[in-house]
């Protein structure tokens, strides 16, 4: 082989490449639908608006969180469609299984981004973080099923509820101010990723605000299956209250291991650390009911005095009759209500383009979710994009629907009130 044919071939191929490239027809439309301005995901002839769902439908996060949360969104929009849709437009959900893997999430996002007006769900902190720059470049709103406070800085991210960081602060406000425990010996075990860091940031702010005596901090990897080192470290520290920024399987492992080595502090679980399924584990259920609290949000399941809950239960009967009481379902249903509010405002403004949806989101101000969550607030600055700062501390009780019983009522601690984003 001589180099000449090789060069000739390469130059020929590159020329072919360049010539063909010139014929490429770009995409980018601005369909006119009467006076309604539309671009992606809106079919004016079929009268549908498509929304993307990025959620784990397989893998360990699917059954306890991904599936019930997504069913909450589906149920809400089934009801919306049955009552005529939004200004006559039916909502169509395009779902993709992210497997809770950031790389798969990005691939899924790329696959469907041009088919949807916005994303009605992106579940998980590391997965959602992976699409933050993309959503900013594509000017597409993403409703995040994660409460990572960092996302409040991102103009295209829609948070639902009180961020993790403030959850931790409110939990210690309850212990110090409501229960009157002065300078408690405390510790934290957190997942070694963005989710865990948010919990740790809140813990450090709480230490300064409430004079906590921090005696131990331990971390674990999301893939860990044994937690002996963390449990032993916290036992040695003598912490009375241990905060867990974890996922349910890890929380179960940590609490069970600590008990096995004779350490039973009072556990305070970040909202994603608890799932009703944990109560099916014999032995663990007793520990959880006696030694653990959960800090979270949301109306008690079955409390029909809350209008949003009554409406949700009716819709469950119609569209998803097999659904068991589940906090993640309630979260998804609430999330869908916020998405609906954005879409409704955009339709009212006759602009459901991506720019129109962003404008609608920025001008939402308050969203009443029927008491399922406290009224949520939105705006265009980071501090305004924190939708709420209040929480409820719950005990775990398998005898009540949803397995959570309010201890504190809904409140905002002094530290959470002042936190800046």
């Amino acid at each position, binding site marked *: *082989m001589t180099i000449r*044919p*090789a060069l000739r*071939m390469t130059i020929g*191929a590159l020329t*072919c*490449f360049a010539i*063909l*490239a*010139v*014929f*490429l*027809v*770009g*995409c*980018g439309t601005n369909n006119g639908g009467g006076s309604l301005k539309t671009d992606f995901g809106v079919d004016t002839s079929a009268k549908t608006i498509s929304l993307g769902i990025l959620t784990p*439908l*397989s*893998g360990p996060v*699917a059954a306890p969180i991904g*599936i019930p949360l*997504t*069913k909450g969104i*589906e149920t809400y929009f089934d009801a919306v469609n049955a009552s005529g849709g939004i200004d006559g437009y039916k909502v169509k959900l395009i*779902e*993709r*299984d992210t*497997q809770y893997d*950031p*790389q*798969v999430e*990005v*691939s899924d996002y*790329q*696959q469907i981004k*041009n088919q949807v007006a916005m994303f009605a769900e992106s579940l998980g902190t*590391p997965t959602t*973080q*992976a*699409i*933050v*720059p*993309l959503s900013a*470049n*594509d000017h597409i709103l993403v409703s995040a099923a994660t409460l990572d406070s*960092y996302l409040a*800085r991102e103009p295209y991210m829609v948070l639902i509820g009180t961020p993790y960081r403030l959850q931790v602060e409110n939990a210690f406000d309850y212990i110090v101010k409501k229960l009157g425990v002065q300078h408690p010996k405390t510790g934290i075990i957190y997942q*070694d*990723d*963005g989710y*865990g*860091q*948010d919990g740790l940031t809140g813990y450090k702010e709480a230490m300064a605000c409430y004079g906590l005596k921090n005696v131990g901090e331990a971390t674990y*990897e*999301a893939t860990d299956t044994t937690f002996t080192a963390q449990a032993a470290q916290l036992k040695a520290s003598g912490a009375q209250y241990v905060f867990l920024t974890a996922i349910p399987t890890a929380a179960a492992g940590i609490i069970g291991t600590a008990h096995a080595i004779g350490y039973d502090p009072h556990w305070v679980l970040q909202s994603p650390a608890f799932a009703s399924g944990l109560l099916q584990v014999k032995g663990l259920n007793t520990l959880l009911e006696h030694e653990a609290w959960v800090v979270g949000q949301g109306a008690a399941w079955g409390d029909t005095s809350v209008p949003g809950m009554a409406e949700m239960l009716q819709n469950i009967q119609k569209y998803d009759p097999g659904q068991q009481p589940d906090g993640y379902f309630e979260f998804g249903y609430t999330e869908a209500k916020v998405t609906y509010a954005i879409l409704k405002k955009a339709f009212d403004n006759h602009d459901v383009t991506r720019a129109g949806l962003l404008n609608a989101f920025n001008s939402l101000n308050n969203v009443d979710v029927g008491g399922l969550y406290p009224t949520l607030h939105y705006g265009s600055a980071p501090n305004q994009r924190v939708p709420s700062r209040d929480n409820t501390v719950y005990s775990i009780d398998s005898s009540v629907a949803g397995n959570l019983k309010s201890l504190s009522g809904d409140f905002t601690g002094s530290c959470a009130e002042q936190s800046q984003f």
Partner: protein
Amino acid sequence: MSNATSKTTRSAVSGFPSTPLGLLQTARGRVLLLGGLIALCLVFLFGGDNWLLILNVVMIAAMATLSLNILSGYTGLISLGITFFMGIGAYTAAWLGGPHPFFPGDPVGLNLSIFIWLPAAGVVAALTGALVGPTALRLKGFYLAIVTLALVFIGLYLFKNARAITGGPQGRIFPTPSFGDLSFSSPTPVFGVLLTTNQWYFLLLTPLLALMALFVHNVMRSRAGRAFQAVRDNETGAAIIGVNLFQAKMSAFIFSSFLAGIAGALWASYPGGYAEPNTWNLILAIQFVAAMLVGGVASVWGSILGAAFVFGLPLALDTFSLIPQSTSNTGLTSGDLSAILYGLLIILFMLFEPTGVIGFIRRVTSLIQRFDERAKVKGGVKANASEPVELES
């Protein structure tokens, strides 16, 4: 491993060509190459974002697998530390090319051009390789594997704690290539034609991978490359014939780290432009080892095919799966199917084709060649046999 790789190298002489340019040696090869290039053009123009995404990921993974093949395939130094060097490259790129901090506490970024951050990613990774090399290369075999494994964990610790550069466990934004006013981050027109982000990356990655593959191929045929392979096949023998073992190993380590750094910068940049320290974990390192083994050890083509198999196949299965992705599907999910098929194919390859995809292709090529030769011989015999008949008639 050395016997297997020696066989692979030998078979490369007669069977499947070892680089794309090797295809120019035969008419069939030229047709194949032209067909391949036309296919690439078609994918570029009409493949859409789904196919381009898969191809782009495969091309970056192929660069990383190529870097691993230099060290483990050609030089015989088993390494699990590739993600450490990829991470070093990625964070160098992020520091030099990343955006300026917007909020207090945001990681630093100097917002420099790709002409600085991409080569710098390779250079800093190579320098890091030069620093850790002398210690690591005192060992070989499994011991070296363990030391390089430790690098992955040291890297994870460093990346999680060097917050000013890496963003800590929260991760950070990585630079997107841009040339003056032209940025890959959003669809940009060129000569009146709007090209998508994935198309821009495709235009960058295709020639870059081709150049890397050609460069590695040429190096492996040079004096230095022969020294690498001599070290792999028999260290004592290599020393006797005058190969400076330390120099050869260090060169391979630095060369491999350089390519890994560049691959890392691109891996973080595409497709999301965001990565957290856990990205550079052991599982990813093992995937690159699997790509090298499945594709073919000590082979440029093997690196590309292995990356396509290990990184492209699951993405393709997931993207084009016939199983609906919905909460109403309570049986086998698309993700489950992808994982099962992927695992099954790896087992089948290891059982029935241990020389990898490249070995399989070489076998098929060799069979076709033999068939051709037989046909020619038969044709010759027939022609010879028919001549007298014609004469008689």
